[in-house]
């Protein structure tokens, strides 16, 4: 059986046995080329489920809307870290989620009405070819982790602060503050986002350079030590801002400073919620 058939069979079994109330997976989009999320409530709809190189979205975020029901979900290795993040932060319960894990060798760089064989940038430097948590495994992982995790971050770090500033000012000048990056992020689940808070007012409503920068950098800081590198934010950005350069820079720093990577271990205390006696302020060593 190919991955799509395995997922369909498992989804039917889970729905018919009432193990889960719904299975979240992928189906073909209306362009006939890409994939979109699909919520399957009845086994008669399970045949719409697919899995192939176009299934890029991270679906874990949807679990936050379904906390009280048992949900089956199709999860790639990078997305599986999002499950651990939400377990770690007590946002979901393990026994309410049935994880159909996919051994993934990377998904393709796709866009509306366009497909390609080329892997997404994030997949080309992927370190996470193994699922960190799952209940049922589909397929077998073939690819090995990429040689280097942060080649793009390192080349950003080599630029001067002035060059980096100019780069981000240019990028954020396009931002239209649609908040798609936040809405798709499994780590962005505050009931009231700082950007919408009126009292105290952190950031105003202007869709303009200063506040665009404030919005994007504050969101990145809120994800420091929490971002699981799924790059869903970059995927959904309508004006192609390379948000992964920002979020993964902080991921890299947290890894260097605290030897911690979010979403790998659901029980490891997150660095900003734990304190060790010998911890020092400033960059260690």
């Amino acid at each position, binding site marked *: 059986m190919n991955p799509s058939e395995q997922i369909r069979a498992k989804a039917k079994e889970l729905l018919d046995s009432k193990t889960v109330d719904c299975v979240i997976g992928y189906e073909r989009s209306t362009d006939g080329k890409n994939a979109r999320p699909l*919520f399957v409530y009845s086994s008669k709809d399970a045949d719409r489920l697919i899995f192939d190189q176009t299934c890029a979205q991270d679906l874990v975020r949807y679990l936050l809307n379904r906390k009280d029901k048992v949900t089956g979900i199709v999860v790639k290795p990078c997305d599986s870290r999002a499950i651990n993040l939400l377990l770690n932060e007590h946002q979901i319960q393990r026994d309410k989620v049935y994880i159909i894990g996919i051994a993934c060798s990377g998904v393709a760089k796709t866009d509306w009405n366009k497909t390609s064989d080329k892997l997404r940038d994030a997949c080309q430097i992927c370190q996470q070819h193994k699922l960190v948590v799952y209940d049922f495994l589909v397929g077998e992982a073939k690819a090995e982790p990429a040689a280097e995790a942060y080649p793009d971050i390192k080349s950003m770090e080599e630029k001067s602060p002035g060059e980096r500033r100019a780069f981000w000012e240019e990028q954020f000048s396009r931002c239209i503050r*649609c908040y798609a990056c936040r809405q*798709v992020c499994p780590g962005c689940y505050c009931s009231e986002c700082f950007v*919408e808070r009126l009292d105290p007012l952190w950031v105003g409503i*202007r869709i303009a350079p200063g506040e665009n920068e404030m919005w994007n950098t504050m969101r990145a800081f809120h994800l420091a030590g929490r971002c699981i590198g799924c790059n869903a934010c970059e995927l959904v950005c309508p004006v192609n801002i390379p948000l992964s350069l920002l979020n993964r820079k902080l991921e890299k720093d947290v890894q260097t400073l605290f030897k911690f990577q979010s979403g790998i271990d659901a029980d490891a205390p997150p660095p900003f919620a734990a304190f060790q006696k010998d911890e020092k302020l400033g960059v260690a060593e």
Partner: protein
Amino acid sequence: MNKFISKKDLLSWLGKLRETRRLIAPTRVEDLTLFKEVSRVEDIVFDYQNTDLPPKQFLFPATETIFSIEKKDGRVELVPAKVEKETVIFGVRPCDAKGILTLGMPFLEEPGDPLFREHREKTILVGISCLTACPECFCASMGSAPDDPSGMDIMLTGVKDGYLIQVLTDKGKALMPDSLLSSVDTPKPPAPQVSTVPSKGITEKMRQAFDDPYWGRVADRCLHCNVCSYVCPTCYCFDVRDYGGKNKTERVRSWESCQSPGFSKIAGGYDPRANKGTRMRQRFAHKLLYFPEHFGTMHCIGCGRCVRACPVNIDIREIIQDVQKLGVKEK
């Protein structure tokens, strides 16, 4: 006989306009095509089907000051915002010109929005008709067409070495010197076939579908970001905030969207559209039911941008098809 302008003359005409006006045209930014103010006509791109964002932002900016309150010599004065420069938007497609007409309906209806009116009066639209259609365009189902000049001051149609030109309004005539135009017997190229959606009778169907559980099901996958509203040429919701300073306070408006979670929250914290289904229904009901009821025209012009931009493929063409079928028993 048709009027003709060569590409060379067109570019030098645009270059001349730029000296006294703000010239907005499609440009390439990374791998996007965006309307931007151009300082050199060489930056204008011509090989695009449609821009990734509509020209809406030049009539209804993403952020603008509506007025300011200034303290001067012990007196307090209200200073309305002014539109300084005339703007020429070059390269709008027929759908976008129609979009600007549609966007104007709520803003220009009495008593009207003075700032929008001023933007509109000081804007000249030079459009280019479509010779190819994107697969996700459906302008023909929304009262427009790939060669529809509605809303434009000047419309161009690409032919060999230049454009057939229609100067449609007095504003256009004042701007385009006859000396640049010649008469040719080149025929107008045929308009491309555009895909259609079953929009006939959709308004009545939308009313019937108001309480259908369908909306909740579609909304399952909606992320409730604002992408669809912000790439839409006709969405016009905004939020207002005061930015206070020592001697000057500005009242600013910025785009907002009915899809964002707190959009309809009212004093006391109650939100009549707290769940995703009701927010999703609001967007489509506004486009296909409330706006047509009030203004007699659809609040969608079939440009297909929301279809292309939605991260989870909420596709208005599919919604229209589905709503048409709601309540009809499957045989």
